[in-house]
């Protein structure tokens, strides 16, 4: 019997009993995303109303710049950049988990109602309590987590396909969108404009505290994803086969839902509902890697989308800055249409 040709196309690194499988294309895509991220970040750190040449940027970063240079880098641009990267990664990862869990290309926190839940939290705090930014952030996170919990409770137990999750999520999203509309109509003009601004999503003025919060959420979510990634992979084959292969399906599903909800809550609470990031990032990552099993790549693409969108937002239109969410919406919307038009034939493995 011949066992010559490796049936699975991947490089394998083996050390004693341990082995790791690396797909060349996935490694290349991840490396490309990291390089692109560094490039975009250095560009956006050095441009704006206060321009920095590459050597001045380096000086400011290494602590040998002028007071003004160091202030603009360390207090204004870097925290905003760090927030953009972490928020994007949170949303990309959350989207990838939801898409795997629902086995549906549209399974993202925007469709499942988590974003709307965060909006209800934020709008409630703004309109009813006229609350401070910190309270609005906390309330938005609570809204997203609460929605995740409701969806979990409604879909627990019998869930032979991901469809139930998607349908329940769409229903929840519709109800919450109604609540948001109601909150907006009963608010006065000042609160309403603040609410609409929040609903668009923006990263202006983010500080290290907020960056650290999202970074912590991202780290926790990343570790949880690593732990359940094998189980999620088995779930792609459907519940019966996954159980047959020995995956703890109930635990994996619950952990995945909680993890993705926390990631969404962290990202949306700090930046507002940046449109389409969670939906588009996993698809772009799947195109780049030729397989949708790389959660790392989905997170990196999410970070890249938000960083690029934020740089474009700062650059603005006609000398005026735009809210970040406007740009991610345009970028994501265009991408989604392109996807729908070109992918009518055949998709990448979900």
């Amino acid at each position, binding site marked *: 019997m011949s066992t010559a040709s*490796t049936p699975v196309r991947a490089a394998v690194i083996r050390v004693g009993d341990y082995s790791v499988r690396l797909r060349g294309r996935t490694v290349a895509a991840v490396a490309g995303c990291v390089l692109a991220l560094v490039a975009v970040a250095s560009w956006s750190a050095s441009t704006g109303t206060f321009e920095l040449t590459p050597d001045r940027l380096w000086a400011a970063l290494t602590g040998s710049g002028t007071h003004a240079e160091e202030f603009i880098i360390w207090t204004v641009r870097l925290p905003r950049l760090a927030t953009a990267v972490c928020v994007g990664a949170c949303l990309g990862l959350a989207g990838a988990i939801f898409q795997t869990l629902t086995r549906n290309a549209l399974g993202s926190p925007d469709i499942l109602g988590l974003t709307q839940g965060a909006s209800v939290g934020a709008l409630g705090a703004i309109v009813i309590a006229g609350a401070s930014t910190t309270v609005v952030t906390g309330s938005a996170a609570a809204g997203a987590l609460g929605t995740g919990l409701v969806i979990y409770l409604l879909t627990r137990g019998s869930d032979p396909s991901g469809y139930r999750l998607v349908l329940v999520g769409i229903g929840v999203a519709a109800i919450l969108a109604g609540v948001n509309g109601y909150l907006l109509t009963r608010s006065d003009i000042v609160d309403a404009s603040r609410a609409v601004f929040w609903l668009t999503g923006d990263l202006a003025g983010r500080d290290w505290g907020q960056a650290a919060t999202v970074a912590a959420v991202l780290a926790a979510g990343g570790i949880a994803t690593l732990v359940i990634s094998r189980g999620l992979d088995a779930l792609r084959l459907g519940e019966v086969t996954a*159980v047959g*292969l*020995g995956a703890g399906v109930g635990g994996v599903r619950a952990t995945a839902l909680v993890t993705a909800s926390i990631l969404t809550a962290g990202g949306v609470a700090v930046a507002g509902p940046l449109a389409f990031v969670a939906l588009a990032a996993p698809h772009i990552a799947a195109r780049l890697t030729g397989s949708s099993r790389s959660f790392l790549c989905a997170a990196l693409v999410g970070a890249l989308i938000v960083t690029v969108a934020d740089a474009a937002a700062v650059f603005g239109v006609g000398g005026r800055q735009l809210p970040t969410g406007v740009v991610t919406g345009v970028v994501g919307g265009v991408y989604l249409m392109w996807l729908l038009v070109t992918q009518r034939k055949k998709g990448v493995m979900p």
Partner: protein
Amino acid sequence: MTVSPSPLAVENATLGYGRLAISEGLTVDVPDGEFTVIIGPNACGKSTLLKALARMLKPSAGRVLLDGRDIHSRSTRTVARRLGLLPQSPIAPDGITVADLVARGRYPHQGILRQWSARDEAVVAEAMEATDITDLASRSVDELSGGQRQRVWIAMVLAQQTPLLLLDEPTTYLDITHQIEVLDLCAKLHREGRTLVAVLHDLNQAARYATHLIAMRDGAVVAEGAPADIVTDDIVEKVFDLPCRIIEDPETATPLVIPRARPRDLG
């Protein structure tokens, strides 16, 4: 603890879906080292029994025992190394390749830091060879014919390398040659020491390949034993409501079921 001689057994179990009970007080022992075939009319509960044996369905009363212990009390990974299941109609994710799908069978033997051992590789190649799908390795599963797809799923279950194999209608979709190939493969696995349980609809194939037959009707076991004792005109009529004659298979001397001609067929 009483150790049952059979590695897998259903003990006085009620099986069903929600409030709908399919089997009540069902007791079935899967004999060790045998090739057991379950026969019975559509909707009599064969798949339901197989799902219960594979812990996909929890009995509302009674127990399913794996090696004498309640199957639901053991870790699903431990069970996955003992028994493999080929469901009646499994689904493959869009775009997955044949080799990738077969490789998933190694799941219970892998971990985050044991992703692809040399043994995984050899076992997957062997499973693909045994099911005659090596040439399809890089094809996408959803582009295959029903029969090719069925063989890919069988290969995945083989790659799991379990001493117990549960196969729900492994020969559906297959042409006659591939049906016989799959059954020959099952017989080979049985000779090599595995315990098999398969649901088959073709009584003649069941009689030819099984070493132990279980005939079911309306959720209950009507008869079980050696094929020669079970495939009789009485029992076949009782289980399937089909008047028939039994003759000897000229090839294997096993029973061959010949349905009786109805008066109008005689002209």
